[in-house]
């Protein structure tokens, strides 16, 4: 009797553990999707801030641009890890996992372009800033075209 109770308790415990594990994995996948959405929002906010500075013209606030470019550069290093196998979401195209090298390459391009903008801002060599910011924007758009389903 006791052994049956024990066995049953063990079974219940195992089921609970399994359910928790599955739930945790699901939560983790949800987590990573949320994290990458937050990261892209952070990039958007940084590019918006940079855009507002450059669009205003005149003497550019180089320190502000360097700060925001650093955010994008840092974010770029985290992108690939936030798209683990199986972490599908509504606008993430399967190409992300089918062409991982190409995807990684775009993240690298973003890092490089953001770093160039940051360095130019620190060296006070921004010019009107448009070409350098445009290079960052081109990597955003190029990667979205290849790997993000258009908004419907």
């Amino acid at each position, binding site marked *: 009797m006791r052994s049956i109770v024990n066995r049953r308790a063990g079974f219940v415990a195992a089921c609970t553990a399994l359910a928790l594990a599955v739930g945790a994995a699901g939560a983790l996948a949800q987590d990573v999707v949320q994290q990458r959405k937050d990261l892209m929002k952070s990039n958007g906010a940084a590019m918006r801030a940079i855009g507002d500075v450059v669009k205003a013209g005149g003497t550019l606030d180089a320190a502000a641009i360097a700060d925001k470019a650093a955010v994008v550069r840092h974010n770029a290093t985290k992108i690939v890890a936030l798209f683990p196998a199986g972490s599908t979401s509504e606008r993430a195209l399967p190409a992300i996992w089918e062409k991982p090298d190409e995807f990684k390459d775009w993240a690298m391009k973003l890092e490089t372009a953001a770093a160039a903008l940051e360095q130019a801002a620190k060296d006070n060599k921004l010019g009107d800033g448009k070409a350098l910011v445009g290079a960052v924007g081109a990597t955003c758009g190029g990667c979205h075209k290849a790997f993000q*389903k258009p908004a419907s």
Partner: protein
Amino acid sequence: MFASTAAVAAPDPARGEYVFHMSGCASCHTAEGGAFLAGGRRLTTPFGDFLVPNITPDPDTGIGGWSAADLVRAMAEGVSPSGGHYYPSFPYTSYTRMRHEDIADLKAYLDTVPAVRNDVGPHELGFPFSVRLGNFFWKLLFFSPGPFVADPARDAEWNRGAYLVNGPGHCGECHTPRNILGGLDHDRALAGATLPEGDGGKVPSLRGLDWSVEDFVWAFETGLLPDGDALGSSMADVITENTSKLTDADRRAIAVYLKSLSALSTD
């Protein structure tokens, strides 16, 4: 009539390169991973698959054997050198608004790009769309040929913008909704549509956007929207290949024109 207009000034390849960026030729005529302008891109539409032709100067598989007048006729009338009527997948419906001098300059530029031998097969269309003669009737219904006519009530900047948007830029080919036969609905010009090829994604309206002129100019130059998001989808290439290579004055003219349109959205 074409020979006379094309002969006004000596065609200039440098100016032609600029016209090339105004006209967005590379977006369709260079295939993903393919040689520059050598064609082969497949446009999948409800009517079938269109295979985009080679426009390098290769005499056999490209347009090396064409005269400037041939290109003018193709772009302004939608008629090939052998007299065939093009499918409107080739946006002559917009290019017809172009100045013939611009097209002659464009031809001078196209003659300078590397010739690539690439025999692109015929379009793969289902019946009845496979019958090319149908294009003749389609044109009677939906094609109004003729160059852009400036509006004297508007200033030069607005008119330049209107020319770029409605002529070479052929923005309406994606941003204007189409009827069931693929004709553009000019009453709802630029009011947003469904992409005519590929995944049929939504194309937004350009009318009544709450953007400043600077916001437009910025988006055309960097591909970044006012909220910091990036233009993706087919617009990513439009930015890098075309609008980012225009002068600031032209980007501004486009912005001024678009901002003057009354708000309208197809949705």
